[in-house]
C-alpha cells in the first residue's frame, strides 16, 4: 500500500495550496487529486524531506505542509511495490493517465561544452514557466546535461512503465554524438538539433498529467542540483538493457510464459506497430535527406554567387559585367532562402517524424510491460495452485497438523493473485487509453506538420518568385 500512498499523495501539489477550480488549465489533474484526497491513507508517512530549494525566490511559498513528499516512498526497487502493483479504482486511474496538462512550458537554450577531453559534455540551460502552484515559483532556470535527461527518463520509466503510462523515450545517446562532444568537433547543426530534440522531449513529458506529478520531474526542472545520473553514462543500447532489467525487477521474475493474446485490440496494435515504425523511419530519412540537399543547394547557390561576382570583375564588357553581378545577387538571395527552408524541412518535418519513430518505441515499451504484468499474474496463480495442491496432498496423507499453516499461505497467495490480476487489468485499461491518446495525437500531428511543410515550401517559393521578378527586368535585353 505504501506505493499507492506515494503516488497519490505526491500526485498533485496543487490540491494542497489551491482550490482545484482556480487552476482551469489543470482540470484533469485537479479532478484526480480531489479524488485521491478522499482515498484513505493507511500508512503514516515515514520521513519528511525538506522541500527542494529552487533557483527562483519565494522559498516561503514552498509548502511545508504537503508532507508526503518523501523520496523514499518512490524507491522503485522496493519489493513491496513490485509484489503488489497499485490498486486503485480503475476510473481513477484512467482519468489520471489520459489527462494531459498544459501548464508547464520548458525552453532549452545556451548549449555549451563543459569539461575537457574524455570528460567533456554538453550543458544546456533549462528554463521552465509554470502556472502550477505548489512548485514554489513561476519561473525556474537550471543547468542540465544530456545524461540528466536520460536519467530522468529512466526514473520515470522504472516507476511508471508497469502502470501502462506512455512515457516518451528520451533522445538516444549516439556514438557520433559521443565523439562529437569528446573530440570537441563543434558541430553547430548537431548541437542545435540535440537542443531542439530535448526541448520537444521534455515538453512532451510535461503534457502527461501523471508524470508531471513525479517528484523527480519537478526536481529536474526546479532544483539547482540533482544527483548525477549514474546509469546513463554508456551508450544507449546498454541503457536500454538496464531499463528492461528494471522492469523485470518491478514485476517479480518468474517462469516466462508467452502470453496468449486474447484482446484483439492489443493484437492489432502489436501487429501494426513495427510496420508503422519502419514506414515513419523511411519517411523521416527521406525528408532528412531533402533537408540536407536543400542546405547543399543553399551553400552551392552562395558559391555560385561568389563565382559570378568574380566573373563580373574579370569581364571587360561593362554591361555584361553588371549582368553577371546581378546573377551574383540573385543567387546569394536564393541561397539564403534555401538554407532557411532546409532548417524548416528539418525541424518542422523530418525531426518530428523521427520523434514519432521514437514515440513508437514508447508504445512498444507499454506492450512489453503489459506482457510482463501478465506473466506476473500467471506466476502468482501458479503459486496459488501449488499451495492448493500441497493442502490436498496434506489431506490425503493425513498430516493435518500442517494444514492450517498451508491454508494461511493459500490466503496470502490468493491476495497476491488477485492483486496481480487487478494490476494487469488496470494496466491494460490504462495502456489502451494511453495508446489511443498517443495515436490520436500522432495522426493529428502528422496532418498538421504535412500542411505546415507545404506552407513553408509555399512561403519560400513565393520569395523565390519575388526574387526572379525583381531580377528579370535587369536581365532583359534592352537593345
Amino acid at each position, binding site marked *: 500500500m505504501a506505493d499507492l500512498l506515494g503516488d497519490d499523495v505526491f500526485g498533485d501539489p496543487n490540491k494542497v495550496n489551491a482550490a482545484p477550480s482556480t487552476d482551469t488549465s489543470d482540470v484533469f489533474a485537479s479532478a484526480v487529486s480531489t479524488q485521491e484526497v478522499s482515498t484513505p491513507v493507511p500508512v503514516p508517512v515515514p520521513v519528511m524531506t525538506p522541500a527542494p530549494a529552487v533557483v527562483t525566490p519565494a522559498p516561503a511559498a514552498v509548502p511545508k505542509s504537503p508532507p508526503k513528499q518523501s523520496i523514499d516512498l518512490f524507491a522503485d526497487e522496493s519489493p513491496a511495490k513490485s509484489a503488489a502493483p497499485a490498486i486503485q479504482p480503475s476510473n481513477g486511474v484512467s482519468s489520471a493517465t489520459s489527462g494531459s496538462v498544459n501548464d508547464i512550458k520548458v525552453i532549452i537554450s545556451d548549449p555549451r561544452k563543459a569539461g575537457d577531453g574524455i570528460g567533456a559534455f554538453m550543458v544546456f540551460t533549462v528554463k521552465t514557466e509554470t502556472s502550477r502552484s505548489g512548485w514554489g515559483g513561476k519561473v525556474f532556470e537550471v543547468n542540465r546535461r544530456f545524461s540528466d535527461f536520460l536519467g530522468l527518463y529512466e526514473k520515470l520509466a522504472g516507476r511508471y512503465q508497469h502502470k501502462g503510462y506512455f512515457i516518451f523515450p528520451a533522445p538516444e545517446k549516439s556514438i557520433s554524438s559521443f565523439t562529437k562532444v569528446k573530440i570537441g568537433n563543434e558541430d553547430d547543426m548537431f548541437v542545435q538539433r540535440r537542443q531542439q530534440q530535448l526541448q520537444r522531449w521534455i515538453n512532451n513529458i510535461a503534457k502527461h498529467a501523471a508524470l508531471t506529478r513525479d517528484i523527480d520531474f519537478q526536481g529536474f526542472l526546479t532544483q539547482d542540483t540533482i544527483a548525477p545520473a549514474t546509469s546513463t553514462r554508456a551508450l544507449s543500447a546498454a541503457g536500454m538493457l538496464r531499463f528492461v532489467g528494471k522492469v523485470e525487477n518491478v514485476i517479480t521474475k518468474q517462469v516466462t510464459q508467452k502470453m496468449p493474446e486474447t484482446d484483439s485490440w492489443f493484437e492489432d496494435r502489436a501487429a*501494426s506497430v513495427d*510496420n508503422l515504425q519502419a*514506414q*515513419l523511419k*523511411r*519517411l523521416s530519412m*527521406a*525528408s532528412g*535527406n*531533402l533537408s540536407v*540537399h*536543400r542546405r*547543399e*543547394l543553399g551553400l*552551392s*547557390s552562395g*558559391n*555560385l554567387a*561568389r*563565382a*559570378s561576382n*568574380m*566573373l563580373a*570583375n*574579370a*569581364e*571587360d*564588357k561593362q*554591361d*555584361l559585367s553588371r*549582368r*553577371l553581378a546581378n*546573377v551574383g545577387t*540573385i*543567387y546569394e538571395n536564393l541561397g539564403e532562402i534555401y538554407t532557411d527552408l532546409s532548417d524548416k524541412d528539418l525541424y518542422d518535418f523530418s525531426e518530428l517524424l523521427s520523434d514519432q519513430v521514437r514515440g513508437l518505441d514508447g508504445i512498444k515499451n507499454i506492450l512489453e510491460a503489459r506482457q510482463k504484468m501478465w506473466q506476473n499474474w500467471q506466476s502468482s496463480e501458479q503459486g496459488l495452485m501449488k499451495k492448493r495442491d500441497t493442502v490436498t496432498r496434506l489431506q490425503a496423507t493425513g498430516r493435518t497438523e500442517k494444514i492450517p499453516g498451508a491454508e494461511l499461505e493459500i490466503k496470502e497467495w490468493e491476495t497476491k493473485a488477485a492483486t496481480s490480476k487487478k494490476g494487469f487489468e488496470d494496466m491494460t485499461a490504462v495502456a489502451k487509453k494511453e495508446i*489511443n491518446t498517443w*495515436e*490520436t495525437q*500522432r*495522426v*493529428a500531428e*502528422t*496532418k498538421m506538420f*504535412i*500542411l505546415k511543410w*507545404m*506552407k513553408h*515550401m*509555399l512561403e519560400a*517559393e*513565393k520569395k*523565390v*518568385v519575388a526574387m*526572379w*521578378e525583381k*531580377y*528579370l527586368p535587369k*536581365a*532583359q*535585353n534592352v537593345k
Partner: protein
Amino acid sequence: MLAAADSIDDDLPIENSESDPVPDPVDSLSEKVMEQALEGKLEIQITDAVSEKETIKFKIQVKSDLQSYTESRGREFKVERTHHEFSWLHSSLSENQMYAGYLIPPKPQKPDFSSPSKQLHDISEKEEKLPKEDIAFLKTDLEDKYLAQFKKAVSTHEIFLNRICQHKILRNDHDLRIFLTFDGELNVRSKNTKERLTGWLRKGEMAIQAAFNDRVKDPDPFFEKNRVFINEYELRIDNGKRKSKEVTKEYGLISKELMAIMVEVKRMAASEAKNPEARKIALERCLNIVCRDLPKIQKWEGRMGSDTELKLVDLMRYYVAETESVKELLIRRQQSLDDLDRKNRDLEAAKIKNKNVQHFEARKTAAVEHKDKLASAGKEELVRFEKNREEAFVKNLEEHAALQLKHSRQKVNVLENMIKALEAAEGEL
C-alpha cells in the same frame, strides 16, 4: 550559338563568319564582323543519331553547291559520322598551321549516356519492389533525361560543324570535305601513336602556356589586353561552370528526394486508410492529395535544375571551351612573335658572318608575313569572340531568368492548390 532550351530544332544563332579582310583598325571591325561574306552554299544539319555500343552515330545531311562537293556526291546527300570522327576533324583543324590566326570551334563534348542507362537498369532491378505507377514514373523521368542528353549531344555536334561550315576560311578545308563527303568510316581509329604524340605535344603546350602566363608584355596593346583578360577569365569562367554545375546537381537531388518522399507518403496513405483514428481526421485523404501533387512540385523543381543546366552551365561550359580556343590562338600569336625574334637574330648573325644573308632574309620575311597574317585574322576573331560572348551571355541569362521565374510560379501555383485542397479536406469533416 548555344544549345537552345528545349529542342534542337530551335534556330541556333550560329557564330557568324568572316567580314571583308580589314586588317588593322580594330574599332571599325566590330560592325563588319557579323556580315556574311560566303561564296556558295555549304549547309549541314544533323537529322538523326543512332546510339551504338560505344558511341553514337550522327546522320548528317549536307546541302551544297560548291563544285568540290557536287562533283563527288551531288547537291544533297547524307553521311554518318561518329564522335571520334568529329574529334579527328577538330584536331586536324587545330594542328593546321594555315589556320593559326583563327579560332578553331571547340570540340564537342563526348556524349555519355552511361548514367541514365545505368539508372534505367537499376530501376528494372527494383521493378518488383515498387508499385507499377512509380516505376512507370521513374522510367519516363529517366527516358526524358536520356532524350535530353541525346538532343544535347546532337546539338553540340551540329553547332561545331555549323561553325566550321560558316567560317570563311575553315569551310574550304580539305579534311572537312573528306569528313562530309567520304562514304564510309574514316580511318581514325588507328591513331594510337598519333594520340600519344598529341599527348606529348599537349605537355609541350602546357609548358608554353606557363610561359605565356608570365610572359613579358605583348608589344601590340590589343593582344596584350586580350592576353591579360584571358588569363583571368579562364580561371573564373571555369569556376563559374563548376559552381553552377553544383547548383544543378542539388536541384536534381532535391527532386529525387521529393520522389522518395512521395513513394513513402503513398505507402503511408495506404496503411492509414485502415486506421480509424486517421480516418476520423481524413489523414489518408490529405496524404493522397500530397501524393497527387508532390510529383508536380518535383517536376518543376527538376526543371529549375535542368534549365539552369541548359542556360547557365552549358553557357559557361561552352565558354570554358571557347576560352581555351582563344588561348590557343593567343599562344600561336606569341609563337609567331618568338619565331620572328629568332629569325631576326639568325639574320643578324648571318649578316655578321656575311653568309647566306639572302636565305635568312627570305626566312625573316616569311616570318613577318606569317605574324602579320595571323595578327590581322586573330584580331578579327577576337573582336568577334567578345561580341559573341556578350550576345550569348545576355541571351542565355535572360532566358534563364524567364524560365526560372516560370517554373517557380508553377510551383507556387501547385502549392497553393495543394494547400487549398488540404484545408478543404479538413473542412469537409
